[in-house]
């Protein structure tokens, strides 16, 4: 099995259909297939063992991804927001590597950063020029490595997650149907190539036969303009992007995107007010929430459009609450919630989320597999499931606050805080406390032009949750720290608060 066989099928099934569009440039499925073959010859003729990409989205992305699979050399996308020193440190872990990047980086990276450097347009150029086509001779060994992804990580140094061809192909089989896209389906892709969602969107779009319009640098206005101009029908966004779009549309009654039939989101916690407002602004759009991890080849859970509607329309709080859940497991994916001793917990009980399925890798370079003997992967995400299997995330397992004998989820308190009319963003963490072990602390960003005191916010939490949930410490800030997909960095907040508290003492 090889992800190349998916592109081979697409090139055969709809050769003339446009596959990827970036600005004025585009590739049909046949052109993409041929380009991957020519690039594969180039990769095979080099001494490199990995194909790294340090760049925003461009036509070079699908070519490099499939050419790597064809040549049998793992594809390693790298975060372009990292400094030269950080990039160099990652590249040293995958030598000898060929690096596809832009002119600026070629000039600024250290001489020995990669065995070979190729500028993006030069790489596309050598792939699309006329020349001998490659033989369809990619390996079909399901255990070959397709992609190495440095996990962005909310703690510690990046780990290189290993995704083998069998993981990615299994995911496609369980999540999508070959050739399911209609001829006029257009997907707008804004997630960066170094994120699992960016890698998967390339493969799943090819498998579905969609036309992909790439937007390399996201901003809300450019996204809305491109979506209108290209008559985009489907798109994926991380929560911060949707929040910016909602803000851009402030004062308007509708987003005016009649072609947009489906919008999916994931990668971090979606604030309730943002999704509720988005559903008003996009009245003809079906919303799907996806939850997944790099180590699980992306999505393992989806909150379907009908789940969104049922939640919005219900007067039962247990059903309404599902708007803040990440939905239920995909077919072929199993979930468990376990306590610290590994005991499987009942519905409604909080613990660590475990996942099992053919798309689950759970393997890192140098560490091997982290799956247990029965194939379960500990996600390090905390959560609970309700009676019907809807999964509620509570943040990272390390973020759970233990006050006295009580385990508390920071997410639950944040959800209440952001519903206060003056609060734009909230981050809740545990800080050391002599009496309780840990105390609840909140950092809050107020909406422009509004006012609220710490006491007012404490009373607000007390009114909506138990008194043990009330933050003993409330600090105001102008911004909160997030990683590039909008995941709140509670560890940074914790360290920051610990500094401040010790100074104040």
């Amino acid at each position: 099995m090889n992800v190349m066989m998916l592109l081979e099928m697409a090139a055969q099934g709809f050769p003339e259909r446009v596959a990827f569009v970036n600005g004025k440039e585009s590739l049909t499925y046949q052109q993409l297939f041929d380009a991957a073959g020519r690039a594969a010859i180039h990769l095979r003729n080099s001494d490199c063992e990995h194909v790294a990409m340090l760049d925003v989205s461009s036509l070079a992305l699908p070519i490099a991804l499939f050419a790597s699979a064809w040549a049998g050399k793992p594809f390693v996308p790298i975060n372009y927001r990292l400094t030269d020193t950080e990039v160099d440190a990652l590249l040293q872990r995958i030598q000898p590597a060929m690096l596809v990047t832009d002119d600026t980086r070629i000039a600024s990276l250290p001489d020995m950063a990669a065995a070979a450097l190729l500028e993006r347009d030069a790489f596309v150029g050598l792939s699309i020029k006329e020349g001998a086509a490659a033989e369809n001779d990619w390996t079909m060994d399901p255990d070959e490595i397709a992609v190495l992804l440095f996990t962005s990580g909310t703690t510690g140094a990046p780990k290189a997650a290993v995704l083998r061809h069998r993981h990615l192909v299994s995911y496609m089989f369980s999540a999508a149907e070959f050739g399911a896209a209609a001829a006029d389906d257009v997907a707008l892709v804004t997630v960066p190539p170094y994120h699992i969602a960016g890698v998967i969107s390339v493969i799943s779009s090819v498998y579905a036969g969609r036309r992909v319009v790439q937007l390399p640098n996201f901003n809300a206005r450019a996204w809305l303009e491109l979506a209108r101009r290209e008559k985009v029908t489907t798109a994926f966004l991380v929560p911060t992007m949707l929040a910016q779009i909602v803000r851009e549309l402030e004062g308007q009654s509708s987003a005016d995107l009649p072609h947009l039939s489906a919008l999916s989101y994931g990668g971090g916690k979606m604030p309730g007010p943002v999704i509720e407002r988005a559903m008003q602004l996009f009245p003809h759009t079906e919303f799907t929430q996806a939850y997944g991890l790099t180590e699980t080849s992306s999505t393992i859970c989806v909150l379907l459009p009908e789940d969104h509607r049922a939640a919005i329309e219900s007067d039962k709080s247990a059903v309404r609450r599902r708007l803040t859940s990440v939905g239920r497991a995909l077919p072929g994916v199993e979930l468990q919630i376990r306590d610290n001793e590994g005991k499987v917990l009942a519905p409604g009980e909080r613990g660590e989320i475990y996942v099992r399925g053919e798309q689950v890798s759970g393997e890192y370079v140098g560490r091997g597999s982290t799956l247990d003997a029965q194939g379960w992967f500990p996600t390090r995400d905390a959560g609970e499931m309700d009676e019907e299997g809807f999964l509620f995330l509570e943040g990272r397992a390390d973020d759970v606050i233990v006050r006295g004998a009580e385990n508390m989820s920071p997410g639950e308190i944040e959800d209440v805080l952001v519903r206060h009319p003056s609060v734009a963003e909230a981050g809740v963490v545990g800080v050391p406390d002599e009496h309780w072990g840990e105390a609840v602390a909140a950092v809050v960003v107020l909406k422009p032009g509004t006012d609220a005191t710490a006491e007012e916010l404490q009373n607000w939490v007390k009114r909506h949750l138990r008194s043990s949930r009330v933050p003993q410490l409330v600090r105001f800030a102008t911004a909160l720290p997030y990683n590039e997909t909008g995941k709140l960095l509670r560890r940074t907040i914790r360290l920051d608060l610990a500094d401040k508290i010790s100074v104040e003492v």
Partner: protein
Amino acid sequence: MNQYKPGMRLRSAVCTTEVVVIAVPALNVVLSCGGAPLLGEGETASSGVALDTAAAQGTLLGKRYTNESGELELLCVKPGAGSLAADGIALVVKGAKPLPSSD
């Protein structure tokens, strides 16, 4: 030992069908298309084989074919006129689960 392995590519002896083996049962089976055994790499069709009209419903690109137990799964990577079978029993298209795209 089963002669088929996941990832193996097989082609029809009597039509244009090509499949990739996704999963195989532990016990040995004979896979066929259009009534004739599927060929592996380097194998050639014996002379005189022709499409059996009783096994000519055709294969569809991108569909996965499975047997009753579900242990066997083949992915059609090139369509053709023949239909797939294991030990003479026709395989069926694996049911699609229509989920909205999440990526």
